[in-house]
């Protein structure tokens, strides 16, 4: 067998889903018996058949992939429940095997896949999608790029409506239908407390908390997922803040971004200048601004 053909043959078997009892399937990817499929390219030895030797790799593949997804999405696991999460994760991995050299990117397509395949998102698809988006944003904010931050004095020097600013690449701006930030923090807290309570008790508490959030009437929140001292934080922001920061990221000038943000705002006209000033002061203190690329620095 040519190297490429052998590797394709083995990869198809290794990536084929396990049975419900976590063993290799009896049916091979080509539809024939797996015993025959394995023995075509793998030697048996005095202790293991070709099937059993191939099964070691098949099981390792699935245990590794499922554990990676599970570690990255404790919130979604809590929302869906363990069994539904496992079923969803398997379906996702079958449709989206890793295409990156790093497992960090394994869940990059989870949100879009879940949107197209709502049957895996449980009873409350909006909540499941919200938590997936938050957990992916958390991954991106954790190791996203940081440009040299503009200091408040840099901003004061160049302030003006025609100024353009970039928002740090690691800052993720999101709107949600549910308060999933609270939910995720709660789930994490309970995961940390596992040492002090039985698993059953922890799972019960987690499910109770998730049910409580799922019962809430959807209430839109806006969030900046960002870093301070290399730790990721979730910061609730006003709708107008979200609009300004999003517009700046899209390349609008400060003046245009502010104007856009207040178009449908209920904030009284006279309070707006002070409000905007306070927001910019906070954002720059948090280091969220950096210089845009030179060609578009000032319009």
């Amino acid at each position, binding site marked *: 067998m040519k190297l490429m053909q052998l590797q394709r043959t083995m*990869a198809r078997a290794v990536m084929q889903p396990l049975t419900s009892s976590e063993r290799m399937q009896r049916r091979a990817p080509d539809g024939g018996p797996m015993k025959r499929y394995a023995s075509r390219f793998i030697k048996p030895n005095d202790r293991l058949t070709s099937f059993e030797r191939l099964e*070691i790799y098949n099981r390792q593949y699935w245990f590794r992939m499922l554990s990676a997804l599970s570690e990255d999405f404790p919130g979604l696991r809590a929302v869906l429940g363990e069994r539904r999460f496992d079923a969803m994760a398997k379906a996702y991995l079958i449709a989206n095997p890793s295409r990156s050299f790093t497992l960090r990117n394994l869940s990059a397509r989870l949100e879009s896949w879940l949107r197209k395949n709502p049957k895996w998102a449980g009873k409350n698809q909006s909540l499941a999608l919200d938590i997936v988006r938050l957990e992916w944003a958390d991954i991106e*904010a*954790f190791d*996203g790029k940081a440009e040299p931050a503009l200091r408040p004095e840099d901003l004061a020097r160049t302030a003006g409506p025609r100024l353009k600013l970039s928002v740090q690449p690691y800052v993720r701006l999101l709107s949600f239908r549910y308060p999933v930030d609270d939910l995720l923090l709660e789930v994490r807290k309970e995961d940390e407390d596992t040492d002090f309570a039985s698993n059953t008790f922890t799972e019960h508490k987690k499910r109770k908390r998730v049910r409580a959030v799922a019962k809430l009437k959807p209430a839109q929140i806006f969030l900046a997922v960002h870093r301070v001292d290399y730790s990721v934080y979730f910061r609730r922001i006003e709708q107008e803040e979200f609009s300004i920061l999003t517009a700046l990221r899209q390349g609008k000038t400060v003046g245009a971004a502010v104007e856009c943000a207040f178009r449908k705002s209920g904030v009284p006209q006279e309070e707006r200048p002070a409000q905007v000033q306070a927001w910019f002061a906070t954002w720059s203190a948090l280091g969220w601004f950096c210089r845009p690329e030179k060609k578009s620095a000032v319009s």
Partner: protein
Amino acid sequence: MSANRFNGFTDYGIGIGLRAPHYNHILSRKPVVDWFEIISENFMIDGGRPLHILDQILEQYKVVQHGVSMYFGSAEKLNREHLRRLKELVQRTKTPWLSDHLCWGSVDGRYTHDLLPMPYTFEAVRITAQKVREVQDFLEIPIAVENVSSYAEYHDSEMTEWDFLNEVVERADCGILLDVNNIYVSSQNHNFNPLDYVNSVPAHRVAQIHIAGHSKYRKYILDTHDHPVIDPVWKLYERAIQRAGHTATLLEWDDSIPTFQEVHDEALKANKFLRATALAEAV
């Protein structure tokens, strides 16, 4: 013999793998450690805490990069994005050599994230050696390929694993990261004498040695890196350094990770063999 062109003419002593549970201990207590090995892929990112930690470690310690997903033996082309990011990291760490595994793990752009065994064929030698050369040329540092532990063998193989390793390193003109635990694990799984393997390796190409623990099951052994090194593996290590000399040695401990001190103490057991070899060389 230890400082050679495959490890950048360095003499690094005994290191351990840099792992997250030990970060606080290392940064706050600054223990004396000859060097740390990092998993390259964990730091091939754009920013954030991992790179911040790495920069602090680099201020105090020598660091060598070890990769897990270059897949020299995959029949498909090298991933250019992977190489670009790897080069950025090489420039950051100034690693004197870089290692990855003699295995495959991706096909048609899909990654298994496993270290899958090679068929020991002449076609595989040619493809693998060519890729090692390409990586070496691109990164402009010495490459060492590591033998993996395996649980399966192919009908197609035309030579032993050690003959395959020797063919690849000769054709690629690269170094070897000799993992004596992997040799032991594979010898038990495939019924060969591990000393035959150690004795056949071209000693002048050994850039580094790995030691580790593993898990024994009823019908096979798994390379789990979650136990201390067992005596038969120390014996292989002893033989390896008798042949290769005082070589940079690293203990891998990746699961059920104990305290920093326990891991380091386990690694330092290698000193007994290194001293004996040095003494023998002096005599």
